């Protein structure tokens, strides 16, 4: 018989995986933009 805990952990795993996939896409795109901006900023700083 499936217990409460089994249902909770199964649900958590599915939700977390879906949320992580969305986050990974956003961070990949946003991170690339941030990275380029950071490198430009560091390059242009006075030494």
């Amino acid at each position, binding site marked *: 018989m499936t217990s409460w805990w*089994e249902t909770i952990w199964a649900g958590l795993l599915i939700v977390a995986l879906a949320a*992580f996939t969305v986050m*990974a896409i956003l961070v*990949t795109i946003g991170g690339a933009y941030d990275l380029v901006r*950071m490198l430009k900023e560091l390059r242009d700083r006075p030494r």
Partner: protein
Amino acid sequence: MSDAVLDALRETNFSTFDWAIVIGYLLVSLVIGILVRHLATDMTNYIGAGRSLGSWLGIATMTGTELGLVTVMYSAQKGFKFGFAAFHIAVLAGVVTFFVGLTGFIVAPLRRLEVLTIPEFYERRFDRRTRVLGGFLLAFGGILNMGLFLKVGSMFVVGVTGLPPDGLALPIVMTVLLVLVLVYTVLGGMISVVITDYLQFVLLSLGMVLTTALAIRYVGWHEIFVTVRERMGTAGFDPLQQEGGFGPAYVTWMGILGLVGCAVWPTAVARALAMKNTTELRKQYMWSSLSFLIRFLIPYFWGICALTFIANQADLEGLFFTPAPDTETLEIRIEEGNASEMPGGSESAASQSDPPPAAAPSTEPPLQDLYAMPLFLGRILPAGLLGLISAAMIAAFMSTHDSYLLCWSSVITQDVVAPLRKEPLTAEQRIRLTRWLIVAIGIFVWAWGLFYEGSDDIWDYMAITGAIYFVGAIVVLVGGLYWKRASRRGAFAALLTGCSAILSLEPIRARLAALVAPLTQLSVDELRQAVFSSDRMNLASLLLTVIVFISVSLLFPDEPDASVVGESKGAQA
């Protein structure tokens, strides 16, 4: 190692194409270090990437650092041994990180003060003496803490590629990986760390989602739950059951570790201090809470999938699990304190009424359960994807190593050496010293990994070595930031008292139990499980540190004109 074990480990889908992917990634990391070298012109750029991280890049780099290969390995080991009950650690880590993001607890005031390291805050809030002591304890606990990273990471590479684990392969893999990390960290500092962390995030997130989907497809969603239920009973799902190896005290301690992991552990705080402002920082933490959840949850699940896979393979089950002993043998094993080696169980799991089903008889000692997950991946993932996952894992290994090396070396430079010198160090001298320290720590980690013969449970080792630093640090940080009566002497005494966490080490706990046993009605083993468990000992150590901090601060307050910074005095700095 017998031929059967070696054959089992050699049987992998890892091909020449996979090697090409891995080597290609390693070369890219090396080139990045060389290309960004000229940007690391001063200490703020070298250890803080010029404080110019945007929130998306901050999330990627924080995930990259905190999702190390060692985390994946010990988490998979936890899932393999304790089943779904281990998931509570992931949930607590995620919830606490979200709370820190929502409130800015600890990290926001630290960022506003514009300090580069935590001990630097100690000096601004208390005095130089506290900074030096804090820096020393931080570096000492931290370097010991990363002592096994190299070895465990290399065990993954050996396990997944099918290299022989008992020959020269392990030390060679350790040496190659270490040299690569040292080169690009020494050259580029935090800037190259951030770039490689970003690459790792992209590779690893793709690899984790794909691998999880394939693992479920291979072993079967329903079968996973059935296997855990059959082997561990309800304790394999319920973290509050003492028999599963956890229980309420353990869960409480994991909540505190969740806070430490995101807001007190210096490598995580280093990211917070490198953010552009506190708004970006809080956004970074709220998003990263998902990474803090996932970094444990997915590897636990891989460990459970490996358990399901191995339990259903006659040739492998005999290698990882000793046959279920009869009652008499079981009692002897518990007396000897070996119960944690029981299949699918912890110390207390060995006393369950439904012992796991008998495995194939074997005269070999069981294979280290750390090899279970890489062996599982090596068997189920197709060529190409296996190379991608391995590159992602090696990336995870490298990005944790580079951040840790940079963190501990900069703490020694900024917080131990510089404050003790009469003549101030120039920026160039600081960077040069930090680079030498990175190399020295790297050599130590290499030697420690080769020669240290410790317990198999990596999580325990890491939690205790880390606690030497963070038990004192969490009290002094929170007290220093939010309690205006916190005093210099109180902080100094609290940092020293925090070292009592070292009493949680297994050999010391065993001695304490043996010492106390004659004075009680309980046996040594009952005492070790009921009183001197590592979670209870750590909680006691934390409580003692809080008491010492408050008492000494009240008994020996600072002079009224002491320069004070922090939230408690309106963050004047």
